[in-house]
């Protein structure tokens, strides 16, 4: 004797359940991965502020010695940002010496003086924030740009 047919199949209901789970996972993953850029904003603002106001003579002696030995144009009365624009080829020494142990590996920094790269650790970086400041370099002004972003992966 043949079975009588119904209108709704159980398989339809299970497909609906699967669809619901897929949509939910999509919404959840979007909400989890939406990036808040507050921390990059603070890093860039604070570092630029510190670099613009702290002089080489204010740093610990061991750091002053490293900078004095590593930089071509070193003046202990210069601010950190002035040292960067006056020593573009050696700016990496300044950045690594002053930010080592402070900025997590998850963040990459880039420094540009008049849009010429002086330090670049921005590979695979996303959600970056940029800060620009005019820095005096002898009788002219250089535009120093600091960019910080989050590294992917």
């Amino acid at each position: 004797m043949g079975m009588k047919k119904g209108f709704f199949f159980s398989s339809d209901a299970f497909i609906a359940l699967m669809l619901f789970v897929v949509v939910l996972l999509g919404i959840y993953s979007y909400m989890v991965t939406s990036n808040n850029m507050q921390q990059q904003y603070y890093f860039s603002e604070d570092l630029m502020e510190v670099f613009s106001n702290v002089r080489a003579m204010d740093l610990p002696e061991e750091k002053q010695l490293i900078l004095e030995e590593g930089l071509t144009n070193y003046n202990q009365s210069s601010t950190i940002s002035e040292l960067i624009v006056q020593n573009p080829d050696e700016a990496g020494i300044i950045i690594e010496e002053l930010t080592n142990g402070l900025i997590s590996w998850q963040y990459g920094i880039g420094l540009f003086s008049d849009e010429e790269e002086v330090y670049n650790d921005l590979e695979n970086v996303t959600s970056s924030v940029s800060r620009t400041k005019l820095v005096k370099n002898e009788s002219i002004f250089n535009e120093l740009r600091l960019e910080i972003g989050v590294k992917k992966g």
Partner: protein
Amino acid sequence: MKKGQFWYSDFMIGIIIMITIGLLFFSTIARLYESNDKIGDLISDGSLISDYFMSTGYMASQWSLGEGRIGFVNNGIVNENLDEFQSLEYNLSKTLFGINYDYLVYFENSEEDTETIKGPPGITPENVNDADTDYMIKLIRFVYYNGDIQKMAVVIWE
């Protein structure tokens, strides 16, 4: 008897499954938005108090009377207002900030040595992650303090 288009029992089962899915869907989405709102509130309050710290503040001598605005950083450099803030009672500082959440603020140098500035009694940078809460955020600022560039960490939780 004329035949119907579908079985009544199949129809009821289908309706029950659809209602169940609908209820699960909306309750899950509502929970997601609620937890996002909570995190958003914490980020907002955390940003507020970290911005206060990074300002010069005013009427430092009146903070203990509940007046003025807390702040102890001037152009990236920590100033003498820090001493006034350290002597302030913890709950009074929360009142001055206008927040209900608990917070911890501390300095950390490149050697990972920490110095607690203010927080609930017994809470340190080492044990703050053990706090009994589902919602906690941490914001990092950079300042010049004690002869070097250091991190100022602000942890805030419900």
